[in-house]
């Protein structure tokens, strides 16, 4: 075989990252569907008495329960960004180093504007993807905060009650609801583009990005991995590692 197609298998996504991804996906889908139903309840029942059914109450229950799952899962992921491997590290998520900024531009040139064919081959995510996930994390925080704020007045639990300060910032609970609902749309749009881009990268690069979130392995030509390690963009920057921060395997 040609030397340029000499592939190596790299274990990129550790189990907690994969679990996080799928639990998160499930929670977001559940929250989105139930959230949609709460805002637009369908006319499932057009006759009957109230005591015979509790379906809308159940939809709300599932929504609230999934909210807790989303939060717990998110907290685990934050922990793992300190405890996990270099691809899971919190350092990747904001493009703060020069190398990361350069990679952001390159990815935009290749993937979005398609004006360059020097594709970025990242073992973890590329710098744009990491940043997008940081933004999604922020959106998660926003949804959790507004969601619990909406739940606080009718909840006995201390967790929602931590967020009673939110409603005054919005003026009224109606406004909090509107923005919480708009957040759902951002997730819908994110999911749409996210799924497309996974297809795109798998289709174009052939690094097994699609299966990597199931098995954790990615496949990449050895010379591309060597180039990656040299620039050290994916994962911890080589320089900062030398500068005395925690070395990572």
């Amino acid at each position, binding site marked *: 075989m040609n030397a340029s197609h000499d592939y190596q298998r790299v274990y990129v996504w550790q189990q907690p990252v994969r679990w996080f991804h799928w639990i998160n996906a499930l929670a977001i889908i559940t929250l989105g569907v139930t959230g949609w139903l709460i*805002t*637009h*309840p369908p*006319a*499932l*029942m*057009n*006759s*009957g*008495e*109230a*005591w*015979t*059914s*509790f*379906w*809308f*109450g159940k*939809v709300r229950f599932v929504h609230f329960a999934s909210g807790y799952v989303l939060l717990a899962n998110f907290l685990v992921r934050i922990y793992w960004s300190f405890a996990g491997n270099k691809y899971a590290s919190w350092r990747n998520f904001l493009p703060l180093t020069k190398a990361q900024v350069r990679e952001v531009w390159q990815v935009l040139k290749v993937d*979005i504007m*398609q004006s360059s*064919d020097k594709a970025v081959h990242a073992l973890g995510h590329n710098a744009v993807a990491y940043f997008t996930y940081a933004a999604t994390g922020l959106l998660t925080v926003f949804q959790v905060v507004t969601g619990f704020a909406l739940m606080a*007045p*009718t909840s006995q639990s201390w967790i929602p009650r931590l967020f*009673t*300060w939110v*409603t*005054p910032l919005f*003026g*009224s*609970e*109606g*406004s*909090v*609801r*509107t923005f919480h*609902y*708009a957040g*759902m*749309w951002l997730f*819908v*749009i994110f999911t*749409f*583009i996210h799924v*497309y881009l996974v297809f*795109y990268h798998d*289709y*174009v690069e052939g690094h097994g990005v699609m299966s990597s979130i199931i098995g954790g392995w990615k496949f990449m030509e050895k010379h591309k991995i060597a180039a990656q390690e040299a620039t050290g963009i994916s994962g911890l920057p080589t320089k900062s590692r030398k500068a005395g921060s925690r070395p990572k395997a």
Partner: protein
Amino acid sequence: MSLELETLPKEQTIYDQVIARGVSRREFLGFCAWIGACIGVQGAGVDQVVKALETKKRIPVIWLHFQECTCCSESFLRSSHPIVADILLDKISLDYTETLMAASGHQAEQALQDTIAKYKGEYLLCIEGSVPLAEDGVYCCIGGKSAKGIAEECAEHAKAIIAWGNCACSGCVQAAKPNPTQATPIKKVIAGKPIINVQGCPPIAEVMAGVLVHLLAFDAIPELDNLGRPKAFYSRRVHDTCYRRPNFDAGLFVESFDDENARKGYCLYKVGCKGPTTYNSCGTIRWNGGVSFPIQSGHPCIGCSEENFWDKGPFYERLPDFPGFGVEATADTLGKVALGAAAVGVAAHAVMTNFRKRNEIGEQTGENAERAEKADTAVTDDHSI
């Protein structure tokens, strides 16, 4: 009003005044128990209410009217209990109020000055209406002074301030976009004084009376929520106290106002009821002496005790217009447009990607063909030997 007060013996307690008006002690006690229940005090607290009304003298009150429709006063006057109007309004309060006082012109303005001077730090300032700040406040002037000037002047020596109704609490209809007069709620005009926001358009009469009695009986600001509203009346959502709530949980909704579901009294959520985000006592105290409230009469709650409820319309739809967009657009409209744009982008991108991939595959097969050709030649050569 101030004239009448002079004819009364000074230092009269509220109880003395009520008895002098021909109210029996039995009726008086009944009132105390009733209003005590309204403000949510326990049995022992009723005792305190009785004692307070028996021993305390009237609270001097200045009641100002700015940008408003007087529906708060109207609501108060229509309180179901005669003693409310009688003692709270007629006797203990209102040293100055534009709507009800006998005096007018310079006499009235003099009464205001006299009250401030005489009861420094003791009087209660009630404000009905918002304060226009645009053009130096020309949109609401009384006796040659702007509303802002009057409010500040009266607030300086007030013991506490009650902001009556949505106008005073958050600007109501005149603060709706584009708010040409820059109508501003009291909490944003006056700082450094305790302000009780008694929300609603108008507030329920019993709620207004309850707040006054609380101030009188306990000589303290009632416990307020984080938007400055008394918790006794505004800590629960209309939704949570609504008798139609079981229909909500069962998913039984009115689809339009003339359908069978409306007749059956199902939940009004889908026709725009703002009960789930509105904090008020309509579901418990109700209106006109507990006769009814909007939802009971088949109309969705419009959320009149919440900030900017005029801009959170339409009243008869579930999803409000999304803030910040001139044209009417709900979160759904915006979401669909954004998703559509994303889909178009993705489709175009996918087409481009396929061209690129074809080139790449083409290059590869080109290489392969070349190599295959070489191999072929080699084989041919072998054969030729």
